[in-house]
């Protein structure tokens, strides 16, 4: 069996922008994901970081087959997962699951916890015979650290952290090989966030899971990830091991992003060098030519406007999509 479980090549997802009431005209495209390639290895966690609008959540939706890809390829264990249909797609659903961001909207308020966690078995009855389902649901609740007696409760009777555990139990039910975590802890309080992150770490070891871990919080991503991909306006700008990205970033955007994270230590207040980026992220409908980061980059020159920088290794030993990639340590 190969070491790589998911292989994504040049994945593109454009959303048409339509205007009009009955006869809608396409006036442009939101280039949410615009040529993304990466590998996910068995048992590893690939962190995907980026600011809002960078396309990281759209990437999750395409990987989950919730949105069709515009072009590009993605394989799961060597089989093309973007063209699967019928029973093959059902099998894929059992292997890839998702944990969503908002614990308040990700659980149906009118279903009991037992129904929510048991729904995967109803959809895939071949996984567990009917009589054993209640027991399986109790086991799952126990695994994620909830009281198995609570199967008759409704989501609103739980706190945010507990609801996120319910969502994790639902994702685990079918014993998937890969779990896509779309901002699973960003809606939680600090003390609860740590509990859920520990749970995700423990489950990975216990069940040999691979994670695609999407988040905007760089500290959270570093804590859980083996490798990290940094996204900006639909493209991966830098990818490498957790250490390469955090200790030896070479793309100016990664450097700026890392330097802007507030460090919880007042002693470092005046010593930190924060790279201040000007302005906001440009619209993904009409991204800048050449390098998409050039409008906010302090290194930008003429070439950046004309030539798209490829994601290749220029300095150090990991790829970075910058014409002027250069290592710079910014984390104190």
């Amino acid at each position, binding site marked *: 069996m190969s070491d790589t479980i998911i292989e994504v090549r040049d994945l593109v997802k454009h959303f048409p922008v339509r205007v009009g009431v009955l006869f809608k005209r396409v006036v442009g495209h939101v280039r949410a994901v615009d040529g993304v390639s990466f590998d996910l290895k068995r048992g590893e966690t690939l962190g995907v970081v980026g600011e809002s609008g960078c396309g990281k959540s759209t990437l999750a939706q395409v990987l989950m087959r919730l949105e069709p890809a515009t072009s590009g390829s993605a394989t799961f264990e060597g089989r093309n997962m973007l063209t699967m249909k019928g029973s093959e797609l059902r099998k894929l659903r059992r292997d890839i699951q998702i944990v969503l961001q908002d614990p308040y909207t990700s659980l149906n308020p009118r279903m009991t916890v037992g129904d929510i966690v048991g729904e995967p078995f109803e959809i*895939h009855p071949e996984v567990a015979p009917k009589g054993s389902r209640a027991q399986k649901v109790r086991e799952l609740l126990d695994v994620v650290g909830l009281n198995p007696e609570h199967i008759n409760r409704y989501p609103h009777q739980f706190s945010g952290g507990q609801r996120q555990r319910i969502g994790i139990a639902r994702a685990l039910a079918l014993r998937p090989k890969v779990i896509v975590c779309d901002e699973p802890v960003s809606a939680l309080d600090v003390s609860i966030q740590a509990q859920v992150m520990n749970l995700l770490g423990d489950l990975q070891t216990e069940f040999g899971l691979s994670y695609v871990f999407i988040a905007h919080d760089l500290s959270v991503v570093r804590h859980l990830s083996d490798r990290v991909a940094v996204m900006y306006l639909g493209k991966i700008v830098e990818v490498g091991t957790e250490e390469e990205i955090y200790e030896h970033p070479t793309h100016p955007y990664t450097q700026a992003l890392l330097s802007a994270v507030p460090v919880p230590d007042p002693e470092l207040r005046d010593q930190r060098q924060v790279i201040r980026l000007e302005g906001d992220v440009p619209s*993904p409908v009409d991204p800048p030519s050449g390098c998409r980061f050039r409008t906010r980059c302090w290194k930008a020159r003429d070439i950046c406007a004309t030539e798209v920088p490829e994601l290749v290794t220029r300095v150090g030993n990991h790829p970075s999509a910058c014409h002027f990639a250069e290592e710079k340590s910014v984390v104190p």
Partner: protein
Amino acid sequence: MTDPSTAATGAAVTTAAGEFVTAAEHVEAPGKPRSLASDAWHDLRRRPLFIISALLIALVLLMAIWPSLFTSVDPNYGDLARSRQGPSAQAWFGYDNQGYDLYARTIYGSRASIIVGISATLLTVLIGATLGLLAGYYGGWLDGLMSRVADVFFGLPFVLGAIVILSSFRSSGDASATEIIVLVVLSISVLSWPVCMRIMRSAAIAAKQQDYVKAARALGASTPRIMVRHLLPNTIAPVLVYATIALGAFIGAEATLSFLGIGLRAPVVSWGVMISDSRDVIRVAPHILLFPAAFLTATVLAFVMLGDAVREALDPKAR
């Protein structure tokens, strides 16, 4: 439609009182898994509002099915000598303009009114909710088409539309009571479903964007499953509210059509017919209006209360 990572907005404290009481500490017996329906039924049985309204409705239904249980008087036996007499021991509700026994007529009138009210409501909700759910879930051209069709029906004035439908489909003057009832029900439903559809459509659009629908799709849930298990329970509340209000309005609409001479008419008795009969003598004999109107109001109220109780029982947060 870009990526919806709204960062950590959820982490903030809102001032909703509910925020402070989320901890799960309800008394419960461990044991068999329950479902929303069984929980709702369990909850309903303990609501006084539900019990009262259910009893009232049962009584009215009984009247509609076996009117002879309540009275032995013929509702269509008139004696002009006792015209407009007030309530007495022989006739509890008195007599109307034609000298008919009002009590008997009120009892017998429940049948037509209830049939028209309930059937029209059911049909309206069935058409409206189904189309609304489909339009809301699928969106796109289907939604566009259905919404425009709904707009067309919505644009027809109710009374005018009903006159056109009833007068063009009624075969002749000697149409049977059943035929008229069917026509009245159909014309009410055909003219009213767009409201229900719009309510359902917007509720479905809101619900389908929720993450739990996304999670269900990721699990491989089929479209019917998503509609029935996820969308329907979360969209039915506003439709129920509409249905209970519509029921009263439809019984009233039946009266309006009778009044205009295109709805039910003698010898069929209905509350609507009775109310419209009373219009000329309301000043001199208000009791002719009072009794059918009171029954109508009580019935409508019972259905509104029932709808309210059911709606709350279906919302776990309201328990």
